[in-house]
């Protein structure tokens, strides 16, 4: 059994957050999820700033699920900053968006995205995506080494 993985979900839409968390629950993934509701909060969390100083309580995630379209700092900017920070740049970032635009795809990979998934409209589709993220990114894939462990 893999140890429960920790996921950082960066998403501003309350209903999408609820659906994603519900899908995690339904898929019976024993993962812990922290939800950052905007880009600024996500960067604070990842860099241990403000209230996120305690790594016991707010551990670095194994993967980041990142929405692209957010008010303020959008997903591309979060992606650029993550990939520029030595402490967190190796954490796989999975884009989770409703956009299938070629431009968004290209820019995401240019900014260093590790994977790009679209949010299906149906809940069953959503469940499938969440299950596959778990299977591939948290079980099959071997993540970057953890320096502190």
């Amino acid at each position, binding site marked *: 059994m893999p140890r429960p993985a920790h996921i950082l979900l960066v998403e501003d839409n309350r209903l999408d957050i609820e*659906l994603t968390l519900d899908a995690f629950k339904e898929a019976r993934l024993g993962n812990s999820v922290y939800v950052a509701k905007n880009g600024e909060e996500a960067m604070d969390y990842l860099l241990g700033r403000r209230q996120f100083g305690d790594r016991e309580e707010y551990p670095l995630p194994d993967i980041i699920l990142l929405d692209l379209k957010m008010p303020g700092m959008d997903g591309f900017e979060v992606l650029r900053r993550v990939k520029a920070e030595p402490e967190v740049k190796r954490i796989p970032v999975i884009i989770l968006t409703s956009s299938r635009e070629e431009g968004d795809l290209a820019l995401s990979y240019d900014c260093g995205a590790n994977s790009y998934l679209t*949010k299906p409209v149906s809940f069953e589709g959503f469940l499938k995506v969440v299950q596959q993220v778990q299977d591939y990114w948290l079980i099959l894939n071997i993540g970057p080494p953890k320096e502190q462990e």
Partner: protein
Amino acid sequence: MQASLSLEEVTEAALDRSVYPSPPDLAMLFLREDDRLVLQGARPELLTLCRKEVQVSMGECLCGLALEAGKPVYSPDIHEDPRSTLTACKEWGMRSFAAMPLWGGEGVLGVLGLAWAAAQDVEAQANFLETSVGEIAMGLNNALLYRELQQHARELDRRVRERTEQLQVANKELEAFAYSISHDLRAPLRAVSGFAQIIARRHKAALNEEGRHYVDNIVLASERMAHLIDDLLTYSRLGRQALKLRALDLGKVVKQAIDNLTDRVEATGAIINLPGDWPTVFGDQTLLQQICTNLLDNALTYHQPGVVPELRLTWSMEDGQIILAIADNGIGIPPEYQEKIFNVFQRLHSDEDYPGTGIGLAIVKKSAIMLGGQVWVESEVGKGSTFYIKLPKE
């Protein structure tokens, strides 16, 4: 004088003093601008330094009088002539003067002023002068018309460019609008559909029959709306995405489109007849795939109740272009709708009878146009339809 349309060359020829039996010492060409004459050129070039300033009013001095009267004005000695009111020619040592109006199609175009330092009997040269001036006027007339034509052409060109730019901007804005609205619509739709499905999965037992029926309705309607948004996005993306044009095996594209529809082909039990060999066409793989998938999908959808859909695909060549024909034995399209069906949101049937978004054929048409081709339909109600797509071969 040479037939030239260039105003510079015509001016040059008009000022060529060597053609006259008694060459003048000064030649000036004035062009008419409303009620004034403006110096266009002079030989020798003593006047060209101040040419901007040299203007003569209607009726002023000999050239102004020639403009007013439309007839030549001759003066054997300008120093003695009360009509010669301007001093410049006198100061330059000129004595005899001929002011020759240049007639064009719409009146006097200008005046040619010729002056001699030695006294001349200018009227004795009138015949020769008037003949040469006639030729100059004709050349000038042509050159001026040509200049006007060119100005019109430039103006037209500028306006076309301006309108095209405006249209392009409007088009871009519209496409961006469709794009963003489609995305913005998706998020709430995902919530509607997602939570309805969660209720359907987990809480069905807690609902009575009516409640279950309504939840199913919500799920169905949100699925339909998801299709609509997907199709709208595809349509709006058509104009924004760069084309990747290359030679394509039409057979491969068609077979791939059929593969995409495997479930629908199996569900309907459709029979699809394909030709033995296929041509190469020039196009964009994604767009061509989209065209074929949408047309085949329609042929499978609009079949007559209780009749197995039978599709026949053929191709032919016409004027170096490939025409792909997709014929079905479906319900057919009434003649008055055969063009309209290619418009966005034009539907002929209720969603209950034949599900669809009303965008599929609009996508086909826009794609075909973007590939430099065209699409049309021949159809008979109750017998079937044949859709034709014409595509460039090279």
